[in-house]
Every structure is written in structure tokens, then in C-alpha cells.
């Protein structure tokens, strides 16, 4: 699998991550269930307000899933930032990964690397992490 994502959506994820830094930013990119193309950025509040943990607030999570359902959409991408480590799923990320069909996107905003240089995508199914290429397309 490849994650194809528009340049403007990638930019939106970076802007959100940089705005929240050093707190972890999180959210989804929704898309139609029929084609699973990521089209609609929905930033979520990190109810943990933590530099090492994120969680979609529980009521907001329910509202999000209901809205997606009403629009025949799914969370195509579930993203969050790591603010002092690399953009690779941690043990916590793997333990919580509950959407086997989602692309789990991680962005690193740690200061030792060039800005906006690490955006990676993974499948996490039954505890197994598989990285997939990210293709930034058009705008």
C-alpha cells in the first residue's frame, strides 16, 4: 500500500503539529469509505495535553465517528506528532492502534532534525507495524 496525500493536506498536518509543539498534535483525514482517498482534515483536541501521549477526547471521538458515518466517510488517516522522538510507532501507539484499515501517520517535530523532514505512514494490524511509502501529490 501507498499513502497518496495532497501537498495541501500534508501542509495542514505540519501546521497543526507545529502549532501544538511541544504537545502532541492529533487528528484524522477523512475520506469516502468507497475509495478511501484522504480528503478532509479534521484536527482533534489532544485531551491528554501531553508531550508524550495523545488521546481524542471521548465525546469528541463519538461525535467524529457519528459524523463520518453520516457522510459515508472513514478515518483514512489517523495522525499524531512525536515532539522529541522519531516518527515511528511507539509501543503505546501499537497497543492502542484500533483501526486496522487506517494509515497511521506520524510526524516528528523534534528539534534535532530539519523542520518538516519526517512524515511517515504505517499500517498497524494485530500489533504488527508495516511502513508504507508516502506520495505527496499535486496541491
Amino acid at each position, binding site marked *: 500500500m501507498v499513502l497518496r496525500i495532497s501537498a495541501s493536506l500534508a501542509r495542514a498536518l505540519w501546521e497543526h503539529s507545529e502549532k501544538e509543539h511541544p504537545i502532541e498534535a492529533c487528528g484524522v483525514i477523512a475520506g469516502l469509505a468507497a475509495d478511501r482517498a484522504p480528503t478532509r482534515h479534521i484536527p482533534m483536541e489532544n485531551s*491528554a495535553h501531553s508531550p*508524550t501521549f*495523545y488521546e*481524542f477526547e471521548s465525546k469528541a471521538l463519538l461525535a467524529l465517528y457519528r459524523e463520518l458515518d453520516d457522510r459515508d466517510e472513514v478515518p483514512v488517516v489517523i495522525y499524531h506528532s*512525536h515532539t522529541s522522538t522519531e516518527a515511528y510507532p511507539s509501543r503505546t501507539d501499537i497497543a492502542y492502534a*484500533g*483501526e486496522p484499515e487506517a494509515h497511521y501517520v506520524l510526524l516528528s517535530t523534534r528539534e534535532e532534525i530539519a523542520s518538516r523532514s519526517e512524515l511517515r505512514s504505517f499500517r498497524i494490524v494485530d500489533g504488527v507495524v508495516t511502513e508504507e511509502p508516502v506520495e505527496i501529490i499535486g496541491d
Partner: protein
Amino acid sequence: MSSSGIEVRIPTILRPFTAGAKIVTGEGATLRDLIADLGKQFTGLEERIMENGALLRFINVYVNDEDVRFIGGLDLDLNAGDKVTILPAVAGGASK
């Protein structure tokens, strides 16, 4: 008394246990009873929701749009017509 006809929405990750069904129906006087009933109907489902008599940390259960952790947990009384939604928490982070 047992409340019958409680509609339960099943998230994608648990649908392999319900033969793909998105909405199932169960019964129980409390949420704990309902989950036990679902476990009887769908082998393996209960273990994906509870462990050692408690809700798993990474599973959210809502009754009529309220997160049960804040309104009585597994001992919450259910009534016919209640709507239950199960969702995986969306969480993680660099912590461990």
C-alpha cells in the same frame, strides 16, 4: 429484570467477531450483563472488550452518547431501547 432489544454498534476492529455486522442486538439488566450476552452470541467478543472484570483501557463504551466511565461503568442499569456504541480509543504517543 433483563432488558431486551438493546442495539449495540460494533466498530470495524471487532466486526470479525460479529460476522461483519455493524449493529447487533443484545440483552441485559446492566452493561456487564449485556456484554456477557454479546459474548455468548459472538465467541471471543467479550475478551476484546473486558479483562479481569473491567473495561479495557483502549475501548470506549457509550450508552445513549455518554461514556460509561463517567456514568456508572459496567454496573450501569440498562433499559429497553438504550443505544450502546463501542469504539476503540484513538490514542497513543511517544511515552513508552
